[in-house]
């Protein structure tokens, strides 16, 4: 078998990758992946961003040789995930957020050692790596503690460390910080970035629900929904893809009782947000087009019977890009399964 050169082949590649599920005979088909194309280069931190049911985990499972594609082709490190699964497995690592790994009877150190052995890592290599990972995930005091005595957060951090014990060429992180506390998640995100920079060619494919995580970590992102890749670019380019203008959030109070809520002010569409009964105010959100003057907008509102209590502006975020591309926010609705 010829070993593909990492200089010429992408780390991960999908060509018209399609996966269809059928719960039982006679039940309707669920198309998890419609026929996606992806190309992830060596050394990239690549993100798959999408709501539940978008097909992210299905794609990860196919790349990890845990699921056959219905049609199309998937290659990891140049090897076909169906025909050359063994070669793929030698080069990959997988961490799924919220997973359970290891046996409760083992200590943290033993569990990490066990998984290193499933990847054939010699003891003299495995031991220092395990100690370093234990330090990174801040489980030093618990290294000799049985897994079934760890808290949920500690167990999550151990699972995270497990993904690195084999020092894989390509690491798949499926919602790795799901449910983690803020500090732990930040430490682990920084570690992943450091790990990628440490040696040329290491690649990470990350799926996440967290926009900030995707924005901070990923060199490129694919926005997926209902089994389709809707956009694929750098986070900055995705943000730029949203029309220009400034995002404005106003807190307003009814000055004239019974003032009609405006759906449009000076030709700008207004989205009315949550009321704040404790202050007797309402939030409204709008995007000010290039060239529009905020002062004119405020005057128009005042004339419409509303008194403006507060104004805040911000630049276009990845979430704005996501909403424009997908048509709804990440938390708004889940794709039908």
């Amino acid at each position, binding site marked *: 078998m010829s070993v593909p050169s990492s200089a010429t082949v992408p780390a991960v590649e999908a060509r018209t990758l399609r996966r269809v599920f059928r719960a039982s005979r006679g039940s309707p088909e669920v198309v998890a992946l419609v026929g996606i194309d992806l190309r992830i280069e060596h050394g990239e931190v690549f993100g798959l961003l999408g709501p539940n049911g978008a097909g992210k985990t299905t794609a990860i499972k196919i790349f990890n*040789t845990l699921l056959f594609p219905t049609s199309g082709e998937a290659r990891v490190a140049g090897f076909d995930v169906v025909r050359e699964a063994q070669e793929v497995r030698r080069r*990959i690592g*997988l961490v799924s957020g919220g*997973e359970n790994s290891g*046996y409760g*009877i083992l200590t943290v150190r*033993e569990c990490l050692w066990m*998984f290193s*052995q499933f990847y054939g890592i010699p003891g003299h290599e495995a031991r220092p790596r395990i100690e370093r990972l234990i330090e990174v995930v801040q489980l030093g005091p618990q290294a000799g503690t049985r897994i079934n005595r760890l808290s949920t957060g500690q167990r999550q951090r151990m699972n995270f460390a497990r993904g690195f014990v084999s020092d894989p060429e390509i690491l798949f992180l499926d919602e790795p910080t799901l449910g983690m506390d803020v500090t732990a998640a930040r430490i682990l995100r920084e570690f992943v970035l450091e790990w990628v920079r440490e040696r040329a060619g290491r690649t990470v494919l990350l799926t996440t629900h967290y926009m900030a995580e995707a924005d901070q970590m990923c060199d490129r992102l694919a926005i997926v929904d209902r089994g389709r890749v809707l956009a694929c670019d750098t986070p900055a380019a995705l943000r730029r893809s949203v029309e220009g203008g400034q995002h404005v959030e106003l807190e307003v109070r009814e000055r004239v009782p019974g003032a009609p809520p405006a759906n449009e002010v000076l030709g700008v569409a207004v989205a009315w947000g949550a009321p704040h009964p404790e202050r007797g105010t309402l939030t409204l959100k709008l995007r000010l087009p290039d060239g529009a003057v905020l002062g004119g907008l405020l005057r128009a509102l005042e004339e419409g019977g509303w008194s403006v209590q507060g104004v805040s502006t911000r630049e276009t975020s990845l979430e704005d890009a996501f909403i424009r591309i997908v048509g709804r926010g990440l938390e708004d609705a889940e794709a039908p399964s």
Partner: protein
Amino acid sequence: MRLLPRDLVLDLRAMNARAYVRIVGSFRQLDWVISDAVLPNLGMCAFVLLYRALGAPKSYEALAVIGGILTTYWINVLWGMGAQLYWEKQAGQLQLLFAAPCSRMAILSGMALGGFASTLLRSLVGVAIGIWVFHVRVETFSPWLFTAVFVLTMSSLYALGMTFASLFLLYGREAWHTCTALTEPVYFLSGLYFPIRTLGALGAVAAGLLPLTLGVDALRQVLLGPAAHGLLPVRTELLALLAFTVVLLFAARASMRWLESLAKREGRLTLRWQ
């Protein structure tokens, strides 16, 4: 310089690591003394006392003790081997094992070796009860023949467990019920507490289907001689156990490959919610 092929080294490491879990578990969860050593031997004790009350020959007590000792292995094969991949799946860990580069047979072999080692300890409780509580006596026997019978009985039993483990990938949800359904009928058909010959033709059929039946019968013949009321000559049973081992190991490998492929097609390797 590499002395062994890379894949073999990988599989040996994986096997060792998986066996380690079982062995270390034996020493850390001491409740097995009650659940795996004392409770299963109560059945054996009941039969010994029954034979004693009926005035049956002393060899019948030994028959029951040998059967009781082998019961611990059957329980381990069924629950510790057969249902193991089901538990791994329920714990969400199966996908991690299947995404690792080591072979599935290495994982299964590690489970078998570790399971055997930990059960050996448990079965010694039965031996101790037989010797010190019931004063069971055995004939002078050939240690080589005893070793051959014991090793082949264990290898065929654990090979059966490896085959069951892969089948549970197909019938995962029913693993619990399948284990329960197999427990008592196999106790009966293996003649664990009585000479299998008393089952007549049915016993012969059972012997042809269950390595446990042959193993129990062969061990009794080695340890008790003619008093064991053996079903078939020991040599024949040894050959049959060897055949069982080879066939079941191939069956385990083939079924694991086929069922892994089926599970990947149907998306059964991981839990639905994941």
